[in-house]
């Protein structure tokens, strides 16, 4: 058996480790082991590749590995849990650009490609390029360097169509005679960067969970395309596992918003104002003080906490956990109801609450809490808005009509912690705030929760 065959055997083992790793990622108890297993699979694959006979010099590999490791380790250590969506976006982008570069370099070292290989180079370059700039724009939107509002302009669809036709023509011309078409490839790279930018700027901040999932999927597909370029089976297996997982998450996120993927990608949701025929909101806003809220909570025997992006912004997760502890000490049953698209990426709230050591059994999914929500004494809405907006159920004119929500308005009392009366990310009025059983606790979420904790302490 020669060395190349041995490497292939290691690749099989590594693929199996990825599969077991992903399988174990499916339960909180085994997830950490799963991640370690998958990283072990990656490690042995990298080591095996380093023994490949085609490698004549290690100098530049070592340089690249060193730079990448240092940056990776530092970034992973420093990033805060609140910034996890940005981190994932950036890492996605890095995966994309490296697939793009693999395609380019594979071409540069051997320009006499047959048509099939030329097409695979094009695919890894385009998908990698779109993933790269798309992720960077998503990062900018999450970081609020770029406005979270959808960016749209007149004739956008036509510009996009023109870009797509342009890249198709270039791709065909390149594939027909790759050896003499280096300049076409550069043009294709530039246009793929442009597509990445154009496809993410019209998407609003509230739709970021979908975009992040989709870009995650793209980075896998890009790796898959690079696998075809390199004729490497492990790249194809691992890449398509990631591609499939990203698509599943994308689909789940779309379902949680009752919207199709094309609607998310092209409609510029959030730029439209709710229809004029929208039902008039009746009732008045009833503010309450921290002290009043304390008396309500103190008397409650079951409290459901509904967190949203505002919790992340206010960094209130630790204070909220402290409040939950006091409530439990007080003999109250406490649960956290988490909407699938609360926050800026799938599962964002769960990570924040886990950081504040809320046990995962207390984290409940929407479908789990809704059937029994009438029995909850108090729903404490912290920094969530659109995911608890009853207009999704009641107002047919509302842009979010039909979206599954956590039905907090059906609980006995709702306390909404909110900075001001401003509309949510989708820019839609929320009739919840005007309901009879709703009380508003205005102010910074963290400050209000800390105030409540202080009340419990002084008790």
């Amino acid at each position, binding site marked *: 058996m020669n060395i190349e065959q041995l490497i292939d055997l290691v690749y099989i083992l590594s693929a199996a480790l990825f*599969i077991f*790793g*992903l*399988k174990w990622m*499916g*339960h909180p*108890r085994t*997830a*950490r082991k799963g*991640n*370690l297993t998958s990283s072990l699979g*990656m490690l042995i694959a990298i080591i095996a590749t380093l023994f490949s006979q085609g490698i004549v010099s*290690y100098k*530049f*590999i070592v340089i*690249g*590995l060193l730079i*990448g490791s240092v*940056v*990776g380790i530092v970034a*992973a250590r420093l990033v805060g*849990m609140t910034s*996890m969506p940005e*981190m*994932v976006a950036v*890492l*996605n982008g*890095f995966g994309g*650009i490296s*697939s793009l*570069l*693999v395609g380019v*370099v*594979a071409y540069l*070292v051997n320009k006499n490609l047959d048509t099939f290989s030329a097409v695979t180079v094009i695919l890894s370059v385009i998908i990698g390029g779109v993933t790269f700039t798309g992720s960077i724009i998503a990062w900018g939107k999450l970081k609020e360097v770029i406005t979270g509002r959808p960016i749209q302009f007149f004739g956008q669809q036509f510009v996009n169509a023109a870009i797509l036709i342009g890249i198709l023509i270039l791709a065909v011309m390149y594939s027909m005679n790759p050896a003499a078409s280096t300049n076409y490839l550069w043009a294709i790279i530039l246009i793929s960067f442009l597509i990445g930018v154009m496809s993410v700027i019209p998407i609003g901040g509230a739709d970021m969970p979908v975009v992040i999932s989709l870009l*995650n999927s793209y980075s*896998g597909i*890009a790796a898959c395309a690079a*696998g075809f370029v*390199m004729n490497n*089976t492990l*790249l*194809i297996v*691992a*890449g398509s*596992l*990631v591609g*499939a*997982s990203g698509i*599943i*998450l994308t689909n789940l996120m779309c379902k949680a918003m009752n919207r199709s993927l094309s609607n998310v990608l092209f409609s510029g949701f959030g730029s439209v104002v709710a229809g004029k025929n929208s039902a008039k909101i009746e009732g008045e806003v009833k503010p309450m003080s921290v002290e009043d809220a304390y008396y309500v909570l103190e008397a409650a025997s079951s409290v459901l906490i509904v967190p949203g992006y505002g919790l992340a912004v206010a960094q209130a997760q630790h204070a909220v956990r402290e409040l939950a502890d006091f409530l439990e000490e007080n003999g109250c049953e406490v649960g956290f109801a*988490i909407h699938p698209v609360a926050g800026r990426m*799938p*599962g964002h709230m769960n*990570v924040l609450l886990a950081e504040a*050591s809320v*046990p*995962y059994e207390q*984290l409940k*999914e929407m479908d789990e809490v809704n059937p029994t929500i009438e029995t909850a004494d108090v729903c404490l809405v912290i920094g969530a808005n659109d995911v608890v907006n009853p207009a999704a159920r009641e107002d047919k004119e509302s842009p979010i009509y039909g979206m599954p929500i956590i039905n907090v308005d059906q609980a006995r009392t709702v306390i909404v912690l909110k900075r001001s009366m401003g509309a949510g990310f989708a820019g839609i009025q929320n009739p919840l705030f005007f309901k009879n059983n709703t009380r508003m606790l205005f102010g910074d979420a963290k400050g209000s929760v800390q105030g409540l904790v202080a009340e419990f302490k002084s008790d």
Partner: protein
Amino acid sequence: MDPSSIVFLAFILILSIFLGFELIAKVPSTLHTPLMSGSNAISGITLLGAISLTGAETGNDQLALYLGTAAVAFATMNVVGGYLVTDRMLEMFKAKGKK
């Protein structure tokens, strides 16, 4: 590339896609963020391609060499950063009574 190896690779592609769907479909939403960053790290597998290309380059083509090195660096950031950050997150997921 000869047709038989194209078919072979396509075969692997299709099976892995189905496998991916089966594996991920049952993950609870609690774990969606770690799943995403963990699978993101796996997509850094493109590092293997980057290593082979960069190592095979003798230095005749400076541009290819530099771009290859950049590919290795970016993919390594993806892999190392992705796994570490996922581990950091998962470390925090604890069951009741294990605070």
